[in-house]
């Protein structure tokens, strides 16, 4: 006879920088320098990962895993699935670092794009998951999230970027913000949004385009 015991909930912790490593997001004087150093450091990590450098892999993980997990969870609405997506994404980075093309953008955008794509794909593939995500998405905006995690945000050193992104989203006309959130955080296609909002597809497309143009302008120059 084998008896089981319920496990206690695992304690959470924040990713910790290694000794001598600058904490994620910590800035140095001179914004432009920070921009260059940030992108350069991420690219260097990916280059080292391609050489099988485990510490570089850990560095990239510590820098972005918490954000990746939050994004995935926001879309799939289940923590363990979000963790699975994070795992698959980072394993993909380890196994295929050559997938990063510097000419197509930053490491950060590449990484978050992979997380987002996997999360959206999962939501669309599974009917039950889709219903759960759509139900949750219908109820809230990402801007209405309670900021209970501010201490976490502070610790990761990303408050400025987060504030800037949320501010930019908040400054969009509501109808543009709505379609972008439904698409990005809800995992809906444009036609699905048109159906849900009873709007012509062309209207959804134009609102998406106008909103993204505004965001592009507002977020230009915002970097970690």
């Amino acid at each position, binding site marked *: 006879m084998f008896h089981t015991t319920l496990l206690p909930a695992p304690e959470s912790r924040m990713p910790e920088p290694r000794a001598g490593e600058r904490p994620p997001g910590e800035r140095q004087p001179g914004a432009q320098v920070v921009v260059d150093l940030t992108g350069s450091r991420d690219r260097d990590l990916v280059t080292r990962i391609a050489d099988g450098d485990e510490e570089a892999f850990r560095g990239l993980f510590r820098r972005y895993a918490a954000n990746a997990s939050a994004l995935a969870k926001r879309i799939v609405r289940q923590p363990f699935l979000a*963790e699975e997506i994070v795992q698959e994404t980072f394993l993909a980075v380890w196994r295929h670092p050559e997938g990063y093309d510097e000419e197509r*953008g930053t490491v950060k955008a590449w990484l978050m794009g992979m997380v987002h794509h996997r999360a959206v794909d999962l939501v669309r593939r599974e009917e039950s998951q889709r219903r759960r995500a759509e139900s949750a998405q219908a109820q809230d905006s990402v801007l209405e999230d309670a900021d209970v995690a501010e201490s976490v945000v502070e610790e990761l050193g990303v408050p400025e970027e987060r504030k800037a992104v949320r501010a930019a989203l908040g400054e969009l006309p509501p109808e543009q913000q709505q379609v972008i959130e439904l698409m990005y955080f809800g995992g809906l296609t444009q036609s699905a949004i048109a159906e849900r909002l009873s709007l012509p597809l062309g209207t959804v497309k134009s609102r998406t385009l106008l909103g993204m143009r505004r965001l592009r302008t507002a977020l230009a120059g915002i970097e970690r």
Partner: protein
Amino acid sequence: MMRDHELIEELIVARALDGIDPADERTLEHEQAAHGADCLECRRLEREYAEVAGKLAFAVAPEALRPELEDEIVGLATGSVARLEPPGGREPSIDGAQRRRGGGVLRPLVAIAAAFVLFVGGWAVGSLTSGDDATVPPGARVVAFEGANGKLAVAYRLYSAQNIVPSVLAHFDANNTAPMPVLYRLA
């Protein structure tokens, strides 16, 4: 040409947000093929909107991760930890993810042949037989188990005063088992 890029921009935006419809995806591919892979404007639009989409990810507050997650993923990446694939080796999905998981990522795979009876929450599996005397160690806590086609997989963790050993997965052959649930996840 400018008009062409307005259409392409509209489609690139939708794709950057992963919200493009399949028909529009095909249209975008067609349009971009017509412009050629070297079209600087197309590449600029793709790069810029990918960046915008990437930044949107940071609108969500980052969350603390499980303490062991980093080591687990590094272990999987470097091959020091094997990945438990669900029966049939299906591609990752919600079902697959649920089967593989016990509240964390996939656990070290340890093939242990054993004989024991599992009794959880009033659900009895029955006698499970195999050809070896190895057993789940005393003090182990089962975090998940699943059964299919006469096989039972049990994930468990070992606890001691100072250490929590990462979860271990054991496979058992099971004879004459009652119908088992696809997954029991206890933690």
